[in-house]
């Protein structure tokens, strides 16, 4: 089943065309990695897909329901329903600092989905134990390391049971020694067939975890396909140069 289909997505900031017709599909259970140099439009792509930016043209379709179809966005009610299909994990976590770890996770399920506190807490405890953070439910974000904060942010996103989870450079804000614990969590999600789109600079991680890799360059998908194929036999010069600089 296709969870996400993006077609000919375009987005400009003023005269700067950042997405120049992006098309790709994400199948259920698939982990897709997006790589590319800084400024190539990776974040803008995720932000358009998650409604944090409005695209100029193209279509975005979640499980057969169009969020955006030929420049036209869905109606408000439908929009709300479609929005529950995706989650996003930010580079700098964006946890709510005034809420405990538990409250961070249960806030949206209770407020948005109307889930009871009991059920939401039970689910949160389950997620926290998956993240290896069972002892942190009463901690505040400021008391946690960056790696722990990011794992809470992942649990918070998962608590809403999204069909697809986007990650925008989930380890880029972390000290090198903390990236491993976050990547391990994402890897386990991939093994459990969570559908994910992961923008990352961790090439080894993309190669080992993703089913498909997309290489973006100046607003277009310059190359995409099987990770091993892509990393060991790059076709385009641009990807060759990128991989050379990335030292893989």
């Amino acid at each position: 089943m296709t969870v996400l289909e993006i077609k000919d997505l375009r987005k400009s900031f003023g005269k700067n065309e950042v997405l120049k017709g992006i098309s790709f599909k994400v199948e259920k259970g698939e982990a897709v990695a997006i790589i590319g140099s800084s400024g190539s439009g990776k974040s803008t792509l995720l932000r358009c897909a998650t409604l944090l930016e409005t695209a100029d043209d193209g279509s975005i379709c979640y499980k057969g329901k169009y969020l955006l179809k030929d420049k036209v966005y869905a109606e408000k009610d439908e929009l709300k329903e479609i929005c529950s299909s995706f989650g996003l994990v930010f580079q700098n976590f964006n946890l709510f600092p005034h809420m405990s770890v538990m409250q961070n996770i249960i806030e949206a399920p209770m407020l948005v989905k109307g889930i009871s506190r009991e059920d939401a807490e039970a689910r949160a405890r389950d997620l926290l134990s998956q993240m290896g953070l069972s002892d942190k439910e009463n901690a505040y974000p400021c008391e946690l390391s960056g790696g722990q904060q990011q794992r809470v942010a992942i649990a918070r996103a998962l608590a809403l049971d999204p069909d697809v989870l986007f990650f925008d450079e989930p380890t880029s804000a972390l000290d090198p020694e903390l990236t491993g614990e976050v990547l391990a969590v994402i890897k386990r999600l991939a093994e459990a067939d969570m559908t994910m789109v992961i923008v990352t600079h961790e090439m080894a991680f993309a190669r080992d975890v993703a089913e498909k890799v997309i290489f973006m360059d100046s607003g277009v998908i310059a190359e995409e396909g099987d990770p091993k194929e892509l990393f060991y036999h790059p076709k385009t010069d641009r990807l060759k140069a990128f991989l050379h600089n990335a030292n893989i």
Partner: protein
Amino acid sequence: MFETVLKALLEGFGKSLEIFALTLLGALPLGLIISFGSMSKFAPLKVVTRAVVWVVRGTPLMLQLIIFFYGPGLIFGTNIWGIGSQGRFIAVIVAFVLNYACYFSEIYRGGIEGISRGQYEAGQVLGMNKSQVFFRIVLPQVVKRIIPPMSNEIITLVKDTSLARIIGVYEIIYFGEKFIKSDGIIWPLFFTGVFYLLFSGVLTLLFGYIEKKLNYYHN
């Protein structure tokens, strides 16, 4: 004598307290509304709001009191405040509320603008609507940020209530000063200072307590 003085000062202090409380009651919410106006994406509203705030903050409250009280009568020929001490009191409250709302609005604005965009985006991606994001995510963090500047402003208000007498609303200093003329004694006036000190002291303790309570996290 002491009893007479105490009674008079208490009466005046009651008036000061009334001004203080009513000003807060009106200016705390009005300030929030004004801060929304000053951050509006609708340019005319933003410009007008910021101009009003600039004028109100840039001129003395004493001047505003006088203009508010006498202005309507002299310009339009009608005394909109009603007659007697009641009317004067209403004029005082209106001027104080507007003045303090403008000061508060700038504090709110600073607090709201200090919340990172990521907080709004995180709330939005989690499916919260705008008001849920504001009341559950933004406002609680704003409250923590603005407690220190707010407490300064509120303690200033305690002392500013004395300006009300300029249009004949008899607050505590008025009563204190009366004894200079009637009995030739100055100590009641010093005594009014004790009231102010005690009151602002209590507020300082209160805000210190709130600040401590909100220290369970830091950004």
